[in-house]
């Protein structure tokens, strides 16, 4: 009975479960913050490790691309526009659903999944 009440009292004296951001606010200068951290002047929360095979932001290597259009064919969200002149593609991050099907299908590995996932921005392109 009242199992939860016991648990709550226990949790009161434990650290919160939340994964914190490294620092509370965006620092004015990231390098300075990192330097301070090294010197022990500031503290940052260690980020949670990202597992292998994480599907983050897609990185596009324009040099490797051969313009085979396979990514355009499989992309469920129409992320890719074909540039006729250069025979390359243009990747719209804002449309991407991170299924990484294009990464699997690319014959020359021009597309790769990165571990970047903090993508909110005021810019739309």
């Amino acid at each position, binding site marked *: 009975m*009242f199992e*939860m*009440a016991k648990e*709550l*009292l226990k*949790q*009161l004296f*434990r650290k*919160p*479960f*939340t994964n*914190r951001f490294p620092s509370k606010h965006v620092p004015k200068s990231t390098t300075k913050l990192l330097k301070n951290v090294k010197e022990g002047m500031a503290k940052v929360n260690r980020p949670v490790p990202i597992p292998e095979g994480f599907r983050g932001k897609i990185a596009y290597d324009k040099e490797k691309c051969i313009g085979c259009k396979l990514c355009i064919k499989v992309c469920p969200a129409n992320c890719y526009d074909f540039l006729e002149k250069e025979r390359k593609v243009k990747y719209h991050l804002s449309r991407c659903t991170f299924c990484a099907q294009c990464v699997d299908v690319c014959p020359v590995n021009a597309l790769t999944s990165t571990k970047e996932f903090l993508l909110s921005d005021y810019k739309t392109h």
Partner: protein
Amino acid sequence: MIEALQAIALIPVVAIVGIFISLLFKGIDRILAARMQARIGPPLSQPFIDVKKLFMKENIVPKNSVKWLFEIMPIVSLTASLVVLLYVPLFGFKPLLDGYGDLILVIYLFAIPSLAMVLGGFASSSRYATIGAQREMVTMLSYEFPLAISIIAIAWVISKTGTCIPAFSLGTIFTIPVWGLVGPIGFLGLVLLSLVMLFVMPGEIGTVPFDAPEAETEIGGGVLTEYSGRNLALFYISSSVKTIAFAALIVALIIPWNISNILLLGGTGAIVADALFFLAKLFIVVFVGSTFVRVAIARFRITQIVKIYWGYASLAALFGLLLIAIDLSWMV
């Protein structure tokens, strides 16, 4: 005459300090609740930020509402809560309006914010608010009885054994620890009564599990559905002031001791120590009566609230009263 003028001058000070402390306690309450739920929670200043933001927001009055009633009720509610604050002993001092009213008046004053909410809810002409107002009324009716029993029982103990004349005056009650006046059976009765009072607290201030009048997942805010901007801020402040006032009342009734006598302090030191000790006592009461109960129990249905207050709480209070009566008759 001079004393009365002094009291009048102190009223705004008490009001401002009361609002400040109550919002601070709300911040502490929120952080503790968050920690119990393994969250980080908002910063301590969050209630102040909330109030500031609400005051900046537009104050919307629904088209079909009874406008004057709708607009005036938040003010009535806040005024009543602040007036209560003047009648309960704070920081180890005598209540400001001591001698102008007694415990019975305080009980009635506590009902006014709830009544204001009921009227405001009915005036806003929203269906959710109507249901919420009905529930608020039912809740009020059910918790008043056990509350009245326990408060009056304690005052009765003091009047029976003490030598003081105005027995129901809070100014005298808070100077006499009630626990020393009774034997072991009466002690048990007092424990019961204190528990009942603590149990009535969430109902009185309208938090989970007795927040059926405002249940957000059921009737979307209930009585407060249509309130916004300044009016909502006034209700917000009013409810937090009421929390503090009620906790202070419980402190005065059950744990009225001061620490300065024990620490053998005098002068300013005594006042500061007593004030801090009062805040600690207040914190304990708020934590037990509101914060912990709020996170540890699911919301009751309105029918269950009635059953719990009218049934169990009243029975417990009456039983406590009986124990005290037996004890006192033996002593005499």
